[in-house]
Every structure is written in structure tokens, then in C-alpha cells.
């Protein structure tokens, strides 16, 4: 159990570092064992610094930097133990336009092997989808799916057939 955890932790650390550097375009990222000498008892600390900034507690990071750090860690865990699909509910909300650009590029790459269902209000995020559902409540309290757009690779066919309304 100890060696399995050690291996997993090292894999996640490596992925976390790679994903972080990809999303932040640089910087440092690591996970540290704390609190106990026993690897099965220790806690896990997140230790990062965005590019050009000095290492300090993650509480001092900005809202957007914290969100992107957490996204990097969750994507690292996902890469180490993938599941066939992943649902993301508005996790891009705290990110500025540049960070959303990097986030969506990373998603496009993950989406080659994984199915994503993404909820977002952001145009850039929505633009990377193959298919786009609109949901409304014309009748108060009653959810209704009102539109489907083929946005991604179907777009050319859709344009030819004028299925896009």
C-alpha cells in the first residue's frame, strides 16, 4: 500500500507540474508530504508559484490563480486515473481571457481521449464544443432544452446543410 501510494503521488506530482506550467506558461508547482513521517499518515500540501513570482502560501494567490492551480491539480489526478467522461460546471468563471484561452487549449487536447460536458457562460469556452445545448425557463420553474448547435467539427457540414439556426 505504501509503495502504491508513493508511486501514485509521484505520478500526480509530475502531471501537476506539467499541467501547471502549461496553464500558467511557466512557474513552479509541487506537492509536499507534511505532518507525518509515515507516508500513509501524512497530509498533502500544494506548493506553487506563478511565473516570475516568489513562492508563498497559496492563500495569497489571487482568485484566478487559485482556481487555475486547483484546475491543474484536478486535471493531473484525472490524467493519472482517467475516467471516460468528465463534467465541468462553470469552473472557468474566475479566469480572465488569457487564462481561458490556455484552459480551453488544454481541454481540447484532453478531449481527444475523454468526453467532456461543460457548462459555461464564456464564449471562448463554448466555442470549443462539438455540440451546444441551450437551456431556458420560458415557463417559470420549468427547464426546457431549446436549441442544439453543431459547433465543432460538424460545423462545416452544418453550414452546408444550414442546420445552424
Amino acid at each position: 500500500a505504501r509503495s502504491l501510494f508513493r508511486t501514485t503521488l509521484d505520478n500526480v506530482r509530475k502531471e501537476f507540474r506539467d499541467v501547471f506550467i502549461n496553464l500558467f506558461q511557466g512557474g513552479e508547482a509541487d506537492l509536499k508530504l507534511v505532518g507525518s513521517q509515515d507516508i500513509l499518515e501524512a497530509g498533502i500540501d500544494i506548493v506553487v508559484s506563478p511565473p516570475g513570482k516568489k513562492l508563498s502560501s497559496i492563500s495569497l494567490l489571487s482568485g484566478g490563480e487559485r482556481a487555475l492551480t486547483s484546475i491543474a491539480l484536478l486535471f493531473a489526478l484525472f490524467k493519472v486515473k482517467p475516467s471516460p467522461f468528465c463534467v465541468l460546471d462553470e469552473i472557468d468563471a474566475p479566469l480572465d481571457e488569457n487564462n481561458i484561452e490556455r484552459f480551453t487549449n488544454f481541454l481540447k487536447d484532453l478531449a481527444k481521449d475523454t468526453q467532456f460536458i461543460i457548462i459555461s457562460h464564456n464564449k471562448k469556452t463554448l466555442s470549443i464544443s462539438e455540440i451546444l445545448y441551450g437551456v431556458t425557463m420560458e415557463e417559470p420553474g420549468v427547464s426546457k432544452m431549446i436549441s442544439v448547435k453543431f459547433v465543432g467539427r460538424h460545423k462545416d457540414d452544418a453550414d452546408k446543410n444550414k442546420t445552424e439556426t
Partner: protein
Amino acid sequence: MELKSLKIFGFKSFPDETKFEFEPGVTAIVGPNGCGKSNIVDAIRWTLGEQNVHSLRAGLTEQLIFNGSQTRQPLGMAEVSLTFSNPSHYAPPSLGGSDKVNLTFSEITITRKIFRSGESEYFINKAPCRLKDITEVFMDTGLGVNAYSVISQDQIDMILNAKPEERRYIFEEAA
């Protein structure tokens, strides 16, 4: 194994049966505040076996059933179905396993249903089964509710604010 479709009927703000079809790659959902997008996410989590109603923003299981609006009466039950493609022709042991050739499906549909009485029902390809059987399908196929196959802003904050010891639980799931 790929997600093919989701059918929501009577769950939270979906009194009318609504079906979403999925493609490989990215499916996006957009709409105004309060229109039901996160309710779709809750429906997926619930069907994957989520037992903690607080993770679904509810206090009681009964609150998952459409409770009416200005123009509609409350419903008596909620039902959600998730359909997956089944390229390896996996057959759940509960339905006889892969020995029974007539039970190897090209698609697997998981259905979860609750009634106001509190009764719950579960189905695999319309055959009644127990929650345990659904969990088994997901474990065998790697589709289970793990800490990061459904990610919302809450999970994002939690992993940052967690104490180091709490954080390791999430890691142990990845091990």
C-alpha cells in the same frame, strides 16, 4: 465506453421529459441563471450513484422531485437515465454476465427512480436491479463517481481550502 445520452424526467426543474445526446469530444450547455444547467449535472451525479443529497444541494431526497411552479403541479416521481455505448459487450454480473450471449448489449442504460414515498428503484437496461449492481457496473468499467469526474466551483475551492490530511483522501482515490 462512451456517454451516449441523458434523459431527465421529473428531476428538479425538469417536469417534462428532456433528452440530451452526447458526442465524442466536448458537449457544452449554456443558459441564463437558474434555468437548470447545474440541475443537469446533479442528475448525472445522482444516476452515477451519489448518495449524499447535500452534494446535490438538497436537504432531503424528496427535494430532488419536481415540486411544482406557478403553472405546474408537483410530480410524484423523478427518473433519470444515462446511456453508454458498450463496445466491449460487457454484461453486468447481475444480469447473468458475459456467459449469457443474449445479454451482451451494444448499449447500457442505467436508470434511477425515486418516489415521494421515499421508495427507490434502479434498472439496468430496463431490468430492475439494486444500487449495488449499478455501482458494480461503474467499478468494472471505471465510470464511478470519483472525486474528479464531476467538477464544480465547490470542488475547486474544497481542494484548496482542505487541510493537508483531508486532501490525501482525494489522492487515495487516485491510487
